[in-house]
Protein backbone atom coordinates (compact mmCIF):
# COMPACT_ATOMS: atom_id res chain seq x y z
CA UNK A 1 0.00 0.00 0.00
CA UNK A 2 2.65 2.48 1.10
CA UNK A 3 4.74 1.49 -1.87
CA UNK A 4 1.82 2.17 -4.19
CA UNK A 5 1.20 5.59 -2.68
CA UNK A 6 4.89 6.29 -3.06
CA UNK A 7 4.85 5.28 -6.71
CA UNK A 8 1.71 7.32 -7.33
CA UNK A 9 3.43 10.42 -5.96
CA UNK A 10 6.66 9.70 -7.77
CA UNK A 11 4.96 9.39 -11.14
CA UNK A 12 3.70 12.90 -10.68
CA UNK A 13 6.53 14.62 -8.78
CA UNK A 14 9.51 12.78 -10.32
CA UNK A 15 11.24 12.75 -6.97
CA UNK A 16 13.36 9.70 -7.65
CA UNK A 17 14.76 11.31 -10.80
CA UNK A 18 15.63 14.35 -8.75
CA UNK A 19 17.28 12.15 -6.15
CA UNK A 20 19.22 10.25 -8.82
CA UNK A 21 20.46 13.37 -10.57
CA UNK A 22 21.18 15.46 -7.49
CA UNK A 23 22.42 12.90 -5.00
CA UNK A 24 23.79 9.92 -6.92
CA UNK A 25 24.98 11.24 -10.26
CA UNK A 26 26.41 14.23 -8.44
CA UNK A 27 30.09 13.36 -8.02
CA UNK A 28 32.47 14.59 -5.35
CA UNK A 29 36.19 14.03 -4.81
CA UNK A 30 37.01 10.87 -2.91
CA UNK A 31 39.69 12.46 -0.71
CA UNK A 32 37.55 14.97 1.21
CA UNK A 33 38.85 15.26 4.77
CA UNK A 34 36.99 15.39 8.06
CA UNK A 35 36.80 19.22 8.21
CA UNK A 36 34.60 19.16 5.11
CA UNK A 37 31.84 17.86 7.40
CA UNK A 38 31.63 21.17 9.29
CA UNK A 39 29.34 22.55 6.59
CA UNK A 40 26.83 19.74 7.10
CA UNK A 41 27.13 20.11 10.85
CA UNK A 42 26.28 23.82 10.48
CA UNK A 43 23.19 22.84 8.55
CA UNK A 44 22.19 20.43 11.31
CA UNK A 45 22.84 23.13 13.90
CA UNK A 46 20.55 25.50 12.02
CA UNK A 47 17.75 22.93 11.96
CA UNK A 48 18.17 22.36 15.70
CA UNK A 49 17.88 26.09 16.39
CA UNK A 50 14.74 26.43 14.31
CA UNK A 51 12.97 23.48 15.92
CA UNK A 52 13.91 24.29 19.51
CA UNK A 53 13.20 27.97 18.86
CA UNK A 54 9.63 27.26 17.72
CA UNK A 55 8.90 25.46 20.97
CA UNK A 56 10.48 28.21 23.07
CA UNK A 57 8.27 30.82 21.39
CA UNK A 58 5.22 29.01 22.73
CA UNK A 59 6.08 29.85 26.33
CA UNK A 60 8.45 32.80 26.21
CA UNK A 61 6.95 36.26 26.86
CA UNK A 62 8.66 39.29 25.27
CA UNK A 63 7.77 41.67 28.06
CA UNK A 64 10.27 43.30 30.41
CA UNK A 65 8.23 42.35 33.47
CA UNK A 66 7.66 38.73 32.64
CA UNK A 67 10.43 37.72 30.22
CA UNK A 68 12.80 36.59 32.97
CA UNK A 69 10.16 34.52 34.76
CA UNK A 70 8.84 33.02 31.55
CA UNK A 71 12.34 31.75 30.77
CA UNK A 72 13.42 30.72 34.25
CA UNK A 73 10.15 29.62 35.79
CA UNK A 74 7.64 28.69 33.09
CA UNK A 75 10.17 27.15 30.75
CA UNK A 76 12.71 25.79 33.21
CA UNK A 77 10.35 24.53 35.91
CA UNK A 78 6.72 24.51 34.98
CA UNK A 79 6.24 22.96 31.55
CA UNK A 80 7.59 19.40 31.27
CA UNK A 81 10.70 19.00 29.09
CA UNK A 82 10.94 22.66 28.22
CA UNK A 83 14.17 22.79 30.24
CA UNK A 84 15.56 20.41 27.66
CA UNK A 85 14.42 22.63 24.83
CA UNK A 86 16.05 25.65 26.42
CA UNK A 87 19.29 23.76 27.04
CA UNK A 88 19.27 22.62 23.41
CA UNK A 89 18.66 26.13 22.12
CA UNK A 90 21.30 27.78 24.30
CA UNK A 91 23.96 25.14 23.71
CA UNK A 92 22.87 24.98 20.07
CA UNK A 93 23.65 28.64 19.48
CA UNK A 94 27.17 28.17 20.79
CA UNK A 95 27.72 25.00 18.81
CA UNK A 96 26.35 26.66 15.69
CA UNK A 97 28.86 29.47 15.96
CA UNK A 98 31.67 27.10 16.84
CA UNK A 99 30.93 24.95 13.81
CA UNK A 100 30.64 27.98 11.55
CA UNK A 101 34.01 29.22 12.79
CA UNK A 102 35.55 25.82 12.13
CA UNK A 103 33.90 25.82 8.70
CA UNK A 104 35.38 29.25 7.93
CA UNK A 105 38.85 28.23 9.07
CA UNK A 106 38.59 25.08 6.97
CA UNK A 107 37.65 27.17 3.96
CA UNK A 108 40.67 29.37 4.55
CA UNK A 109 42.99 26.39 5.02
CA UNK A 110 41.98 24.75 1.74
CA UNK A 111 41.60 28.13 -0.01
CA UNK A 112 38.03 27.22 -0.88
CA UNK A 113 37.31 30.93 -1.34
CA UNK A 114 39.25 31.10 -4.59
CA UNK A 115 37.99 31.11 -8.13
CA UNK A 116 35.40 29.80 -8.94
CA UNK A 117 34.08 29.98 -5.38
CA UNK A 118 34.43 33.67 -4.49
CA UNK A 119 30.69 34.17 -4.43
CA UNK A 120 30.19 31.15 -2.18
CA UNK A 121 32.64 32.76 0.21
CA UNK A 122 30.95 36.16 0.09
CA UNK A 123 27.50 34.70 0.76
CA UNK A 124 29.07 32.61 3.54
CA UNK A 125 30.46 35.77 5.08
CA UNK A 126 27.03 37.38 5.05
CA UNK A 127 25.63 34.25 6.72
CA UNK A 128 28.27 34.59 9.42
CA UNK A 129 27.42 38.23 9.95
CA UNK A 130 23.68 37.62 10.13
CA UNK A 131 24.32 34.70 12.44
CA UNK A 132 26.22 36.96 14.84
CA UNK A 133 23.27 39.39 14.89
CA UNK A 134 20.87 36.53 15.48
CA UNK A 135 22.90 35.35 18.45
CA UNK A 136 23.20 38.89 19.79
CA UNK A 137 19.46 39.56 19.62
CA UNK A 138 18.66 36.17 21.14
CA UNK A 139 20.93 36.78 24.08
CA UNK A 140 18.85 39.76 25.21
CA UNK A 141 15.61 37.78 25.40
CA UNK A 142 15.99 36.03 28.82
CA UNK A 143 16.36 39.53 30.30
CA UNK A 144 18.98 38.57 32.87
CA UNK A 145 21.81 40.75 34.11
CA UNK A 146 24.21 39.58 31.40
CA UNK A 147 21.58 39.98 28.69
CA UNK A 148 20.93 43.52 29.75
CA UNK A 149 24.43 44.72 30.51
CA UNK A 150 25.96 42.89 27.59
CA UNK A 151 23.63 44.86 25.33
CA UNK A 152 24.40 48.11 27.16
CA UNK A 153 28.08 47.62 26.38
CA UNK A 154 27.43 46.51 22.80
CA UNK A 155 25.18 49.46 22.06
CA UNK A 156 27.93 51.76 23.40
CA UNK A 157 30.48 50.55 20.86
CA UNK A 158 29.27 52.56 17.83
CA UNK A 159 29.52 55.79 19.85
CA UNK A 160 33.28 55.49 19.51
CA UNK A 161 32.86 56.84 15.97
CA UNK A 162 32.00 60.15 17.59
CA UNK A 163 35.50 60.54 19.00
CA UNK A 164 36.90 60.75 15.47
CA UNK A 165 38.37 64.11 14.39
CA UNK A 166 35.93 65.52 11.82
CA UNK A 167 33.08 63.08 11.30
CA UNK A 168 32.74 62.87 15.09
CA UNK A 169 30.80 66.14 15.00
CA UNK A 170 28.01 64.46 13.04
CA UNK A 171 27.26 62.16 15.99
CA UNK A 172 26.72 59.24 13.65
CA UNK A 173 27.73 56.83 16.40
CA UNK A 174 25.14 58.11 18.80
CA UNK A 175 22.49 57.85 16.12
CA UNK A 176 23.40 54.23 15.44
CA UNK A 177 23.40 53.50 19.14
CA UNK A 178 19.92 54.98 19.63
CA UNK A 179 18.72 53.15 16.58
CA UNK A 180 20.00 49.85 17.97
CA UNK A 181 18.26 50.39 21.29
CA UNK A 182 15.09 51.91 19.89
CA UNK A 183 15.50 54.88 22.22
CA UNK A 184 17.88 56.24 24.80
CA UNK A 185 17.58 53.22 27.02
CA UNK A 186 17.27 49.50 26.66
CA UNK A 187 13.68 48.70 27.55
CA UNK A 188 10.44 47.26 26.29
CA UNK A 189 10.90 48.64 22.79
CA UNK A 190 14.34 47.06 22.51
CA UNK A 191 13.06 43.74 23.77
CA UNK A 192 10.09 43.73 21.41
CA UNK A 193 12.23 44.60 18.41
CA UNK A 194 14.88 42.05 19.25
CA UNK A 195 12.24 39.39 19.71
CA UNK A 196 10.80 40.07 16.28
CA UNK A 197 14.21 40.09 14.67
CA UNK A 198 15.36 36.99 16.48
CA UNK A 199 12.42 34.72 15.96
CA UNK A 200 11.52 35.36 12.38
CA UNK A 201 13.23 38.06 10.38
CA UNK A 202 16.84 37.01 10.89
CA UNK A 203 16.18 33.25 10.69
CA UNK A 204 14.26 33.77 7.44
CA UNK A 205 17.14 35.77 6.01
CA UNK A 206 19.47 33.00 7.15
CA UNK A 207 17.35 30.41 5.42
CA UNK A 208 17.41 32.38 2.20
CA UNK A 209 21.15 32.93 2.39
CA UNK A 210 21.75 29.28 3.21
CA UNK A 211 19.85 28.20 0.13
CA UNK A 212 21.90 30.52 -2.04
CA UNK A 213 25.07 29.31 -0.35
CA UNK A 214 24.25 25.66 -0.95
CA UNK A 215 23.22 26.35 -4.54
CA UNK A 216 26.54 28.06 -5.13
CA UNK A 217 28.43 25.18 -3.56
CA UNK A 218 26.71 22.85 -6.01
CA UNK A 219 27.24 25.18 -8.94
CA UNK A 220 31.00 25.38 -8.40
CA UNK A 221 31.48 21.83 -7.18
CA UNK A 222 33.21 21.01 -3.92
CA UNK A 223 36.83 22.06 -3.62
CA UNK A 224 39.62 19.58 -3.05
CA UNK A 225 42.08 19.25 -0.17
CA UNK A 226 44.90 18.95 -2.70
CA UNK A 227 43.88 22.22 -4.29
CA UNK A 228 43.56 20.61 -7.72
CA UNK A 229 40.21 20.65 -9.49
CA UNK A 230 39.35 17.06 -10.29
CA UNK A 231 37.80 15.67 -13.44
CA UNK A 232 34.53 14.69 -11.83
CA UNK A 233 33.52 12.19 -14.50
CA UNK A 234 36.60 10.08 -13.96
CA UNK A 235 37.70 10.57 -10.36
CA UNK A 236 34.52 11.50 -8.55
CA UNK A 237 32.50 9.20 -6.30
CA UNK A 238 28.69 9.40 -6.04
CA UNK A 239 27.60 11.85 -3.36
CA UNK A 240 25.12 9.24 -2.17
CA UNK A 241 25.96 6.89 -0.57
CA UNK A 242 29.66 7.74 -0.39
CA UNK A 243 29.42 11.17 1.30
CA UNK A 244 25.97 11.00 2.86
CA UNK A 245 26.78 7.98 5.01
CA UNK A 246 30.24 9.20 5.91
CA UNK A 247 29.01 12.61 7.00
CA UNK A 248 25.93 11.04 8.56
CA UNK A 249 28.23 9.08 10.86
CA UNK A 250 30.19 12.25 11.67
CA UNK A 251 26.96 14.08 12.45
CA UNK A 252 26.04 11.36 14.95
CA UNK A 253 29.37 11.96 16.65
CA UNK A 254 28.78 15.68 16.60
CA UNK A 255 25.34 15.25 18.16
CA UNK A 256 26.79 12.97 20.84
CA UNK A 257 29.22 15.72 21.90
CA UNK A 258 26.44 18.28 21.65
CA UNK A 259 24.11 16.30 23.92
CA UNK A 260 26.90 15.74 26.38
CA UNK A 261 26.93 19.50 26.89
CA UNK A 262 23.13 19.76 26.85
CA UNK A 263 22.73 17.25 29.67
CA UNK A 264 25.89 17.64 31.70
CA UNK A 265 27.66 20.92 31.15
CA UNK A 266 25.42 23.94 30.66
CA UNK A 267 27.21 26.32 33.02
CA UNK A 268 28.97 28.10 30.17
CA UNK A 269 25.93 28.35 27.92
CA UNK A 270 23.48 29.45 30.61
CA UNK A 271 25.93 31.38 32.77
CA UNK A 272 25.29 31.96 36.47
CA UNK A 273 25.08 35.75 36.26
CA UNK A 274 22.22 35.52 33.81
CA UNK A 275 20.02 33.86 36.43
CA UNK A 276 19.91 37.31 38.05
CA UNK A 277 17.05 39.39 36.63
CA UNK A 278 18.07 42.51 34.68
CA UNK A 279 18.52 45.50 36.95
CA UNK A 280 19.46 48.84 35.36
CA UNK A 281 20.71 50.11 38.73
CA UNK A 282 23.13 47.30 39.48
CA UNK A 283 26.19 46.88 37.27
CA UNK A 284 27.54 43.33 37.50
CA UNK A 285 31.24 42.80 38.19
CA UNK A 286 32.08 40.96 34.98
CA UNK A 287 30.61 42.14 31.71
CA UNK A 288 32.11 40.68 28.58
CA UNK A 289 30.50 39.72 25.29
CA UNK A 290 29.92 36.09 24.40
CA UNK A 291 33.00 34.12 23.39
CA UNK A 292 32.31 34.34 19.65
CA UNK A 293 32.70 38.12 19.77
CA UNK A 294 35.63 38.27 22.16
CA UNK A 295 38.37 38.47 19.52
CA UNK A 296 36.79 41.62 18.06
CA UNK A 297 36.23 42.94 21.55
CA UNK A 298 39.90 42.47 22.48
CA UNK A 299 41.02 44.24 19.32
CA UNK A 300 38.64 47.07 20.16
CA UNK A 301 39.75 47.58 23.72
CA UNK A 302 43.50 46.96 23.29
CA UNK A 303 43.89 49.93 20.96
CA UNK A 304 44.19 53.04 23.09
CA UNK A 305 42.21 55.26 20.71
CA UNK A 306 38.51 54.38 20.67
CA UNK A 307 37.89 55.40 17.10
CA UNK A 308 40.93 53.50 15.82
CA UNK A 309 39.84 50.49 17.83
CA UNK A 310 36.45 50.64 16.19
CA UNK A 311 38.00 50.92 12.75
CA UNK A 312 40.41 48.06 13.49
CA UNK A 313 37.80 45.51 14.50
CA UNK A 314 35.55 46.39 11.59
CA UNK A 315 38.54 46.17 9.30
CA UNK A 316 39.07 42.58 10.45
CA UNK A 317 35.58 41.73 9.27
CA UNK A 318 36.09 43.51 5.96
CA UNK A 319 39.43 41.81 5.33
CA UNK A 320 37.79 38.46 5.97
CA UNK A 321 35.24 39.33 3.30
CA UNK A 322 37.95 40.42 0.87
CA UNK A 323 40.04 37.28 1.34
CA UNK A 324 39.45 35.94 -2.20
CA UNK A 325 40.89 39.16 -3.61
CA UNK A 326 43.79 39.57 -1.20
CA UNK A 327 44.97 36.08 -2.03
CA UNK A 328 45.37 35.95 -5.82
CA UNK A 329 47.98 33.21 -5.97
CA UNK A 330 47.47 30.55 -8.66
CA UNK A 331 48.11 27.83 -6.07
CA UNK A 332 45.34 26.46 -3.87
CA UNK A 333 45.26 24.70 -0.51
CA UNK A 334 47.69 25.07 2.39
CA UNK A 335 48.89 21.56 1.58
CA UNK A 336 50.76 22.92 -1.38
CA UNK A 337 51.67 26.35 -0.01
CA UNK A 338 54.25 26.29 2.80
CA UNK A 339 54.36 30.09 3.20
CA UNK A 340 50.60 30.26 3.39
CA UNK A 341 50.54 27.42 5.92
CA UNK A 342 52.87 29.36 8.23
CA UNK A 343 50.73 32.48 8.06
CA UNK A 344 47.58 30.39 8.52
CA UNK A 345 48.99 29.04 11.77
CA UNK A 346 49.81 32.59 12.86
CA UNK A 347 46.21 33.54 12.04
CA UNK A 348 44.65 30.66 13.98
CA UNK A 349 46.80 31.24 17.04
CA UNK A 350 46.19 35.00 17.00
CA UNK A 351 42.42 34.53 16.82
CA UNK A 352 42.45 32.07 19.68
CA UNK A 353 44.71 34.18 21.89
CA UNK A 354 42.62 37.30 21.21
CA UNK A 355 39.49 35.40 22.24
CA UNK A 356 41.02 34.12 25.46
CA UNK A 357 42.41 37.59 26.26
CA UNK A 358 38.86 38.88 26.04
CA UNK A 359 37.92 36.78 29.07
CA UNK A 360 40.71 38.30 31.15
CA UNK A 361 40.70 41.63 33.03
CA UNK A 362 41.97 44.59 30.98
CA UNK A 363 45.36 45.02 32.68
CA UNK A 364 48.19 46.88 30.88
CA UNK A 365 49.98 43.57 30.14
CA UNK A 366 46.85 42.14 28.60
CA UNK A 367 46.33 45.28 26.56
CA UNK A 368 49.88 44.98 25.25
CA UNK A 369 49.37 41.31 24.41
CA UNK A 370 46.13 42.30 22.71
CA UNK A 371 48.01 44.81 20.57
CA UNK A 372 50.68 42.28 19.63
CA UNK A 373 48.18 39.66 18.56
CA UNK A 374 46.08 42.23 16.73
CA UNK A 375 49.23 43.02 14.78
CA UNK A 376 49.89 39.35 13.98
CA UNK A 377 46.25 38.92 12.96
CA UNK A 378 46.58 41.76 10.47
CA UNK A 379 49.93 40.38 9.39
CA UNK A 380 48.12 37.31 8.08
CA UNK A 381 45.86 39.36 5.83
CA UNK A 382 48.62 41.67 4.68
CA UNK A 383 50.98 38.79 3.93
CA UNK A 384 48.54 37.27 1.46
CA UNK A 385 49.25 39.59 -1.48
CA UNK A 386 52.99 39.21 -0.88
CA UNK A 387 52.78 35.42 -0.73
CA UNK A 388 50.65 35.50 -3.85
CA UNK A 389 53.27 37.50 -5.74
CA UNK A 390 56.02 35.11 -4.68
CA UNK A 391 53.93 32.13 -5.71
CA UNK A 392 53.18 33.67 -9.10
CA UNK A 393 56.97 33.80 -9.51
CA UNK A 394 57.35 30.09 -8.73
CA UNK A 395 54.44 29.24 -10.90
CA UNK A 396 55.84 31.07 -13.91
CA UNK A 397 59.34 29.67 -13.31
CA UNK A 398 57.89 26.18 -13.52
CA UNK A 399 56.14 27.10 -16.71
CA UNK A 400 52.69 27.12 -15.15
CA UNK A 401 52.32 23.51 -14.13
CA UNK A 402 49.00 21.74 -14.48
CA UNK A 403 46.62 23.12 -11.89
Amino acid at each position, binding site marked *: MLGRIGRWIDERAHLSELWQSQMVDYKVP*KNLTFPYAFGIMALVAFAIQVISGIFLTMYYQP*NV*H*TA*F*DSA*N*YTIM*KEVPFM*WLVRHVHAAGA*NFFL*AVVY*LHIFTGIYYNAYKKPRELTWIVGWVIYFVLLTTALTGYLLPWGQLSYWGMVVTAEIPTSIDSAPIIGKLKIGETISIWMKGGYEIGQITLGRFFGLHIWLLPLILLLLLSIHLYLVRAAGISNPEGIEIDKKKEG*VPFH*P*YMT*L*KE*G*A*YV*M*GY*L*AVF*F*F*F*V*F*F*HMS*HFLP*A*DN*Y*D*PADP*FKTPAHIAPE*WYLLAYYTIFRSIPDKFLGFVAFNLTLVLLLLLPFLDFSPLKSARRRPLF*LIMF*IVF*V*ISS*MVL*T*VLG*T*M*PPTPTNALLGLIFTATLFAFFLSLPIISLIEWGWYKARGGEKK
Partner: protein
Amino acid sequence: MIKTVFFTGITLIFFYIIWIHNIFAHREKYEMPAQYAKIADDVKSYAKEGKQLFEQNCQACHSVRYDAVYISSVQANPKLQTLQEKYGKVLPRDVYEAVFYEDLMALKQSFGKVPPDLSTIYLVKGKEYLFNFTLEPQKVLPGTSMPAVMTGRPEETAKIIAYLKSVAEPSPEEKNKRMLMGVGTIAYLIVMGVLLWLWRGRILRKMGLH
Protein backbone atom coordinates in the same frame (compact mmCIF):
# COMPACT_ATOMS: atom_id res chain seq x y z
CA MET B 1 49.75 13.73 10.21
CA ILE B 2 51.64 16.23 12.37
CA LYS B 3 49.38 18.96 11.04
CA THR B 4 46.24 17.01 11.93
CA VAL B 5 47.48 16.45 15.47
CA PHE B 6 48.49 20.09 15.81
CA PHE B 7 45.21 21.59 14.57
CA THR B 8 43.05 19.12 16.45
CA GLY B 9 45.12 19.75 19.57
CA ILE B 10 44.88 23.53 19.59
CA THR B 11 41.19 23.42 18.73
CA LEU B 12 40.47 21.11 21.65
CA ILE B 13 42.58 23.20 24.03
CA PHE B 14 40.83 26.34 22.87
CA PHE B 15 37.35 24.97 23.43
CA TYR B 16 38.40 23.46 26.73
CA ILE B 17 39.45 26.91 27.93
CA ILE B 18 36.39 28.82 26.79
CA TRP B 19 33.70 26.17 27.36
CA ILE B 20 34.84 24.02 30.23
CA HIS B 21 37.43 25.53 32.44
CA ASN B 22 38.96 28.94 31.87
CA ILE B 23 42.30 28.82 33.66
CA PHE B 24 42.94 32.48 32.89
CA ALA B 25 39.73 34.10 34.08
CA HIS B 26 39.79 35.34 37.62
CA ARG B 27 36.81 34.77 39.92
CA GLU B 28 36.36 35.50 43.61
CA LYS B 29 36.38 32.34 45.66
CA TYR B 30 34.61 31.85 48.97
CA GLU B 31 35.28 29.11 51.46
CA MET B 32 32.77 27.01 53.34
CA PRO B 33 33.54 24.36 55.98
CA ALA B 34 32.92 20.87 54.59
CA GLN B 35 30.42 19.89 57.27
CA TYR B 36 28.12 22.80 56.32
CA ALA B 37 28.65 22.31 52.61
CA LYS B 38 27.33 18.80 53.10
CA ILE B 39 24.17 20.11 54.74
CA ALA B 40 23.62 22.73 52.04
CA ASP B 41 23.93 20.07 49.35
CA ASP B 42 21.60 17.61 51.00
CA VAL B 43 18.34 18.98 49.69
CA LYS B 44 16.44 15.81 50.51
CA SER B 45 17.05 15.95 54.26
CA TYR B 46 17.16 19.68 54.94
CA ALA B 47 15.12 21.66 52.41
CA LYS B 48 11.93 21.36 54.46
CA GLU B 49 13.54 22.51 57.68
CA GLY B 50 15.36 25.17 55.70
CA LYS B 51 12.07 26.54 54.46
CA GLN B 52 10.83 26.96 58.02
CA LEU B 53 14.06 28.68 58.98
CA PHE B 54 13.69 30.91 55.96
CA GLU B 55 10.19 31.88 57.05
CA GLN B 56 11.43 32.73 60.51
CA ASN B 57 14.58 34.62 59.55
CA CYS B 58 14.36 35.99 56.04
CA GLN B 59 10.74 36.24 54.93
CA ALA B 60 10.26 39.61 56.60
CA CYS B 61 12.33 41.05 53.78
CA HIS B 62 12.77 38.45 51.02
CA SER B 63 10.36 36.56 48.80
CA VAL B 64 10.97 33.29 46.97
CA ARG B 65 8.34 33.76 44.32
CA TYR B 66 9.06 30.55 42.42
CA ASP B 67 8.02 28.69 45.56
CA ALA B 68 5.00 30.96 46.17
CA VAL B 69 6.70 32.40 49.26
CA TYR B 70 6.06 36.13 49.54
CA ILE B 71 7.27 38.69 52.07
CA SER B 72 5.51 38.39 55.42
CA SER B 73 3.31 41.48 55.08
CA VAL B 74 2.03 40.24 51.72
CA GLN B 75 1.54 36.75 53.06
CA ALA B 76 -0.73 38.19 55.75
CA ASN B 77 -2.76 40.16 53.21
CA PRO B 78 -6.11 38.53 52.27
CA LYS B 79 -5.79 39.91 48.73
CA LEU B 80 -3.03 37.39 48.11
CA GLN B 81 -5.38 34.44 48.12
CA THR B 82 -7.82 36.09 45.74
CA LEU B 83 -5.03 36.83 43.35
CA GLN B 84 -3.63 33.33 43.60
CA GLU B 85 -7.00 31.89 42.70
CA LYS B 86 -6.99 34.02 39.60
CA TYR B 87 -3.35 33.78 38.49
CA GLY B 88 -2.02 30.61 40.07
CA LYS B 89 0.17 30.21 43.12
CA VAL B 90 3.17 31.85 41.50
CA LEU B 91 1.92 35.33 40.69
CA PRO B 92 3.19 37.08 37.58
CA ARG B 93 5.85 39.52 38.63
CA ASP B 94 4.08 42.63 37.33
CA VAL B 95 0.87 41.72 39.14
CA TYR B 96 2.75 41.05 42.36
CA GLU B 97 4.76 44.24 42.20
CA ALA B 98 1.78 46.39 41.28
CA VAL B 99 -0.69 45.08 43.85
CA PHE B 100 1.79 44.97 46.72
CA TYR B 101 3.59 48.12 45.72
CA GLU B 102 3.20 49.68 49.16
CA ASP B 103 4.62 46.69 51.00
CA LEU B 104 7.66 46.72 48.73
CA MET B 105 8.09 50.47 49.03
CA ALA B 106 7.96 50.24 52.80
CA LEU B 107 10.97 47.89 52.65
CA LYS B 108 12.67 50.23 50.24
CA GLN B 109 12.19 53.09 52.67
CA SER B 110 13.93 51.16 55.42
CA PHE B 111 16.76 49.58 53.44
CA GLY B 112 17.36 51.88 50.48
CA LYS B 113 16.27 49.19 48.05
CA VAL B 114 13.79 46.38 47.81
CA PRO B 115 15.56 43.25 49.13
CA PRO B 116 15.92 40.94 46.12
CA ASP B 117 13.70 37.95 45.45
CA LEU B 118 15.75 34.82 46.21
CA SER B 119 14.21 32.32 43.76
CA THR B 120 17.30 31.96 41.60
CA ILE B 121 19.99 33.37 43.88
CA TYR B 122 21.48 29.93 44.47
CA LEU B 123 22.28 29.60 40.78
CA VAL B 124 23.77 33.08 40.61
CA LYS B 125 25.96 33.04 43.70
CA GLY B 126 26.59 29.45 44.70
CA LYS B 127 26.46 28.04 48.20
CA GLU B 128 29.84 29.34 49.37
CA TYR B 129 28.97 32.97 48.71
CA LEU B 130 25.50 32.63 50.24
CA PHE B 131 26.96 31.04 53.36
CA ASN B 132 29.52 33.76 53.91
CA PHE B 133 27.21 36.60 52.96
CA THR B 134 24.31 35.51 55.15
CA LEU B 135 26.53 35.00 58.18
CA GLU B 136 28.47 38.24 57.76
CA PRO B 137 26.88 40.54 55.17
CA GLN B 138 29.13 43.49 55.98
CA LYS B 139 32.30 41.51 55.48
CA VAL B 140 31.32 40.23 52.04
CA LEU B 141 29.48 43.30 50.75
CA PRO B 142 30.74 46.32 52.73
CA GLY B 143 28.08 48.98 53.15
CA THR B 144 25.16 46.65 52.47
CA SER B 145 21.89 47.36 54.23
CA MET B 146 21.13 43.71 54.88
CA PRO B 147 21.39 43.08 58.64
CA ALA B 148 23.38 40.15 60.04
CA VAL B 149 20.43 38.01 61.11
CA MET B 150 22.19 34.66 61.29
CA THR B 151 25.28 35.50 63.32
CA GLY B 152 26.63 32.42 65.10
CA ARG B 153 24.18 30.01 63.43
CA PRO B 154 26.14 28.43 60.58
CA GLU B 155 24.21 25.16 60.61
CA GLU B 156 20.84 26.83 60.23
CA THR B 157 22.26 29.05 57.50
CA ALA B 158 23.36 25.94 55.64
CA LYS B 159 19.84 24.55 55.92
CA ILE B 160 18.38 27.75 54.48
CA ILE B 161 20.80 27.36 51.59
CA ALA B 162 19.58 23.80 51.07
CA TYR B 163 16.09 25.24 50.78
CA LEU B 164 17.17 27.89 48.27
CA LYS B 165 18.91 25.18 46.30
CA SER B 166 15.78 23.05 46.25
CA VAL B 167 13.86 25.95 44.70
CA ALA B 168 16.51 26.85 42.13
CA GLU B 169 17.60 23.42 40.98
CA PRO B 170 15.69 20.36 39.82
CA SER B 171 14.98 17.83 42.57
CA PRO B 172 17.40 14.94 43.11
CA GLU B 173 14.98 12.46 41.50
CA GLU B 174 14.56 14.75 38.52
CA LYS B 175 18.34 15.07 38.27
CA ASN B 176 18.72 11.30 38.20
CA LYS B 177 16.11 11.05 35.48
CA ARG B 178 17.91 13.66 33.44
CA MET B 179 21.19 11.87 33.85
CA LEU B 180 19.68 8.63 32.57
CA MET B 181 18.13 10.46 29.66
CA GLY B 182 21.44 12.04 28.83
CA VAL B 183 23.39 8.81 28.97
CA GLY B 184 20.69 7.10 26.88
CA THR B 185 20.68 9.79 24.22
CA ILE B 186 24.44 9.88 23.90
CA ALA B 187 24.74 6.10 23.80
CA TYR B 188 22.05 5.93 21.11
CA LEU B 189 23.83 8.49 18.94
CA ILE B 190 27.18 6.74 19.27
CA VAL B 191 25.69 3.36 18.41
CA MET B 192 23.88 4.83 15.41
CA GLY B 193 27.08 6.49 14.24
CA VAL B 194 29.01 3.25 14.44
CA LEU B 195 26.26 1.27 12.71
CA LEU B 196 26.07 3.84 9.93
CA TRP B 197 29.79 3.58 9.46
CA LEU B 198 29.76 -0.22 9.27
CA TRP B 199 26.81 -0.24 6.90
CA ARG B 200 28.59 2.25 4.68
CA GLY B 201 31.61 -0.02 4.58
CA ARG B 202 29.47 -2.89 3.32
CA ILE B 203 27.71 -0.83 0.66
CA LEU B 204 30.95 0.66 -0.59
CA ARG B 205 32.57 -2.77 -0.83
CA LYS B 206 29.65 -3.95 -2.91
CA MET B 207 30.03 -0.91 -5.15
CA GLY B 208 33.77 -1.40 -5.38
CA LEU B 209 34.48 2.05 -4.00
CA HIS B 210 36.40 1.18 -0.89
